[in-house]
C-alpha cells in the first residue's frame, strides 16, 4: 500500500486503565484504508486491550481514536460496531447456545440482512466446514471451527475495518494457513482493511503491510512487515525458536 493512502483508523496517545492499573500507556497506531496492519507482542503486552479500547470497552481514559474521519473515543460500543468495525475478539466469544447459522446472523444483524444469502455463501466458500456445521450449536464446535466462525461472523457485518485478535491461536498449522490465505484474499479482492493482533509473529509479519511491536502497553517499534521480520531485536524476541 502507498504511504499516501487515506487513513481509516488513527489512534493517538490512548491510555486505558483496568481500575487503577494502567494497561495502555499512550499508544499511537495508524491504519490506512486497504492496509493489513499487525500488532505483535508478548502475552499481556496490551494488544487485546488496544483492540477492545478501539471498540470502546474498556473506554480510553485519555487520547483519541478517530475512525473514518469521526472521533469514536466516547461512542458506545454498539454504535462503534455500526460504523462497520468488526472484531473477532480474544477467546472467539462464539455464542455457545446459538447455532452456527444464528451466530452468523448475529454478525449480519446491523442492517445488511438483504445481503445475507450472498454473504453466507461466500463464508461457506471460505470455510466449507461451517456449512457442514450450520445447525450445530456454537459451543459444540472444535476450537478451529469456532475460530473460523468468529472470523466469518465478523465478516458478515461487511466491515470496513476487520480486527482479528489472534486468529491463529491454538489452531493446526494447516488451518492457520487457510485463515491467513483467506485474510490475504479478502484484502486483495475487496480492499478490506485488516488490523491483526498476533503472537504468531512470523506469519503475521509476512502477511501484513506494516507492523507494530507492543511491550508493556507501549509501542516500541514500527515498520513494514519485511523490516520488522529482518529486525534483529524482533527476531530475538518474537521469532527465534518460534513457529516458522
Amino acid at each position, binding site marked *: 500500500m502507498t504511504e499516501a493512502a487515506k487513513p481509516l483508523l488513527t489512534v493517538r496517545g490512548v491510555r486505558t486503565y483496568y481500575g487503577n492499573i494502567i494497561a495502555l500507556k499512550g499508544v499511537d497506531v495508524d491504519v490506512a484504508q486497504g492496509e493489513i496492519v499487525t500488532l505483535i507482542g508478548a502475552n499481556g503486552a496490551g494488544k487485546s486491550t488496544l483492540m477492545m479500547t478501539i471498540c470502546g470497552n474498556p473506554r480510553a481514559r485519555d487520547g483519541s481514536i478517530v475512525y473514518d474521519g469521526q472521533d469514536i473515543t466516547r461512542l458506545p460500543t*454498539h454504535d462503534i460496531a455500526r460504523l462497520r468495525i468488526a472484531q473477532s475478539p480474544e477467546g472467539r*466469544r462464539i*455464542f455457545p447456545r446459538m447455532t452456527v447459522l444464528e451466530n452468523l446472523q448475529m454478525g449480519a444483524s446491523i442492517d445488511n440482512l438483504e445481503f445475507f444469502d450472498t454473504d453466507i455463501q461466500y463464508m461457506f466458500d471460505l470455510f466449507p466446514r461451517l456449512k457442514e456445521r450450520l445447525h450445530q450449536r456454537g459451543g459444540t464446535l472444535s476450537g478451529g471451527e469456532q475460530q473460523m466462525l468468529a472470523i466469518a461472523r465478523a465478516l458478515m457485518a461487511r466491515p470496513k475495518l476487520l480486527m482479528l485478535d489472534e486468529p491463529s491461536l491454538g489452531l493446526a498449522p494447516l488451518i492457520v494457513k487457510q485463515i491467513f490465505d483467506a485474510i490475504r484474499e479478502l484484502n486483495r479482492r475487496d480492499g478490506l482493511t485488516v488490523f491483526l493482533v498476533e503472537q504468531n509473529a512470523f506469519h503475521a509479519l509476512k502477511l501484513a503491510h506494516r507492523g507494530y511491536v507492543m511491550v508493556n502497553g507501549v509501542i516500541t517499534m514500527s515498520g513494514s512487515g519485511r523490516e520488522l521480520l529482518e529486525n534483529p531485536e524482533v527476531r530475538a524476541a518474537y521469532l527465534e525458536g518460534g513457529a516458522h
Partner: protein
Amino acid sequence: MRVTAGGLYFMEVFVQQVINGITIGSLYGLIAIGYTMVFGIIGMVNFAHGDVFMVSAFFALIFLLLLTSWFGIASVTLALILVMVISMVLTGLLVWAIERIAYAPLRGSFRLAPLISAIGMSIVLSNFVQVAQGPRNKPIPPVTREVYTLWQGPTGYPVNISLKQIIIWVVTALLLAAFWYVVQKTALGRAQRACEQDRKMASLLGVNVDRTISLTFVIGAALAAVAGTLFLMYYGVVVFSDGFTPGVKAFTAAVLGGIGSLPGAVLGGLLIGLIETLWGQYVSADYQNVAAFSILVIVLIFMPQGLLGRPEVEKV
C-alpha cells in the same frame, strides 16, 4: 377403580383438579417467564415482578370497569381483549420506568444492589396500590359464568370446564406460541439471546445491550399483565397483596423448570399449579402453599439447575 383412597368419584375429581391445576399453572407459567428472562440476561431475581403482576391486574380492573360502565361496551370478549392490551401496554411502560429508575443505574454495582432495589420496588408498588386503591378486595362483575360439562360419571359427578378456564388455556397457548416465535426466529429474539449469552460480544456486533435489557423487562411485564388480566377474570377480585403469593410461586416455577430456561418456566408453572391443586385436594387445602414452597426448597437443595436448566459449566 371408582372407590379408592381418594374417596368416591376418584377419577372425576382427579380430572377436575387437573383441569383446575393447569389453569392456575398457566398463569404461574406466564409470570415465571418474566423471572426467568430477567435472570437469564442480567442474573438478577426481580422481586418486584409479583407486584408488577398485581398492578397489572389493577390496570385491568380499572379499565374493565371504565369500558363496561362508562363506555358501555357490552361485548365481554371485546372488553377483555381491549383490557388485556391496555394492561400490557401500561404495565410495560411502568416496568420500563422501574428498570430505568431502580435497576439500570445499579448495573455494574455489586450483585446484591439491584436485588435490594427490587425488594424496595416491590414494597413501593404494593403499598402504593394499598393506599391508592384501598386495602380491601376489589371485585368486578363476573365476566362469564359459562360452564361446560365434559362428562358425567355413572355416579353423577360432573367434570366441568368453565369458559374462563378455556379462555385462560387458549390465551396462554397463543401467547406462548407468539412469544416463542419472537425469541427463536426474529432478530429481536436473537439479540436478546445474544445478550443473555455474552453481553460484551453482543455489543461488539452492534446490539444495544441496555435497550435489549429494558426490552426483556418489558416483555416479561407484558406477559405478567396477561396473567394479571386473566387472574382478575378468573377470580373476579384483586387486592393489593395479591402480588406476593403468585409471585413467589411463579418464581418457584422458574426455579423448578430451571431458571433461565423459557420452556422450563412454563413447565415449572404447570407443575406447580398441578401440585398445589392436587395437594389441596388429596392432602390438605390449608397446606397448599407449604407444598408449593417446599418444592422450592427441595429443588434448590437437590437440583439447583432445575428440570430443563443447563449445567453451569460450558465448553468454551
